[in-house]
């Protein structure tokens, strides 16, 4: 039973990095300038690399012989445990970078806690990932501030992105029985306890970017529990899993 919760927790970690990593890899060759194209591809690489570690460990904990690749490529939408925020479509570049910013700061705070995990493997993976994610958070913050406090057009787009994405931030801090089991075992912090640190990191940067938070505090949920993903995840998976769907069992 404890292992079932641990498997679920590890899938949540790995599915966040997998889905966001795939999303930003969709920009490869299309970003507005070469430096940003390279930066997004590099961030995607870090996230996919972290996915290998999280889902690899998830497969070991599950003990059913599934590898990280099996979990990534052979599950369908209802078995994914990522936050709804990371499956949102890319839309324009501003939208993509704001989504990155909103996730990066959560990710960074979460990983810092996980480096203290009672599960040595979780602590090791977090210690590796946290160094990379510190760079992600630095860059997305700088870019959000530059675009939000930039031209009239860039400001308009960033404000629109914040209105569209803010309703997906609440889910980052929701907690359920899996989180309770992980807190109990000393594996992971209660996500709800991370909100103050998150606000302290995110709100000043948004203010500096001259962006206004929407007044409505409604939060969409259902991604991390797998209860209800948005339609976008299934469409994304048809692309990401295309090769395994067209040629089942295909290998290099």
């Amino acid at each position, binding site marked *: 039973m404890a292992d079932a919760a641990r498997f679920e927790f590890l899938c949540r970690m790995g599915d966040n990095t997998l889905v966001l990593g795939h999303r930003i890899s969709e920009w490869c060759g299309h970003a507005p300038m070469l*430096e*940003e194209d*390279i*930066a997004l591809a*590099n*961030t*995607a*690489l*870090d*996230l*996919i*690399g*972290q996915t*290998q*570690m999280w889902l690899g460990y998830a497969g070991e904990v599950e003990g059913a012989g599934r590898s990280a690749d099996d979990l990534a490529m052979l599950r369908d939408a209802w078995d994914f445990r990522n936050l709804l925020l990371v499956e949102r479509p890319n839309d324009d570049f501003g939208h993509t970078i704001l989504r990155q910013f909103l996730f990066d700061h959560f990710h960074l705070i979460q990983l810092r806690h996980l480096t203290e995990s009672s599960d*040595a493997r979780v602590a*090791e*993976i977090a*210690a*590796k*990932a946290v*160094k*990379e994610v510190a*760079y992600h958070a*630095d*860059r997305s913050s700088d870019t959000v501030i530059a675009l939000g406090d930039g031209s009239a057009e860039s400001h308009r787009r960033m404000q629109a992105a914040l209105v569209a994405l803010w309703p997906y931030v609440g889910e980052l801090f929701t907690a359920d029985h899996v989180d309770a089991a992980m807190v109990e075992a000393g594996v992971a912090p209660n996500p709800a306890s991370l909100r103050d640190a998150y606000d302290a990191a995110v709100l000043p940067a948004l203010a500096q970017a001259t962006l206004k938070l929407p007044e409505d505090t409604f939060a969409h949920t259902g991604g991390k529990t797998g209860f209800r993903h948005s339609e976008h995840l299934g469409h994304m998976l048809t692309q990401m899993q295309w090769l395994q769907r067209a040629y089942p069992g295909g290998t290099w």
Partner: protein
Amino acid sequence: MARPVPAPVPGSLADVIRPRRGPKPVPRTEADIWDLLADVPDPEIPVISVTDLGIVRSVRLDGRQVRVAITPTYSGCPATSVIGIAIEAALRGAGLEPVIDTQIDPPWTTDWLTDEAREKLRAYGIAPPSAKGPKACPRCGSPDLSRVSQHGSTPCKAQWRCQSCLEPFDYFKCI
């Protein structure tokens, strides 16, 4: 067969790679194996070796079998698997039976780059890592620098520009 060293680029690689004299001894000790690995180049930055980079964490020799633990620089660095293959090929070429393990703890840090590696990077045109960003343009030595992007052609590098000679250059990020 050892993995061949990529062909030198005139005026850059040739300046920093000094071929060793004479045939290599057959490795008998762990020190011999470290010596052998010191000639396996990083596939992305071939002027430095896998030992210069500090990614070989341990070597254990047991008869003909040798276990080598390597640590990835960045989690998703595509060079990691190529490095594993290169090390395996070099050890097989020396008549050993290699087993390559991946070890992520403690996580790799640029502090493990040797001083020799830092100098090789600089001579190759890549500013070596330092706490507050690059100290000097690797081409003209000017300290008047600006950052272009936090990311570069590989996960471990950022793009900077020299304000004196106006040339862009790679900077090996601190991690």
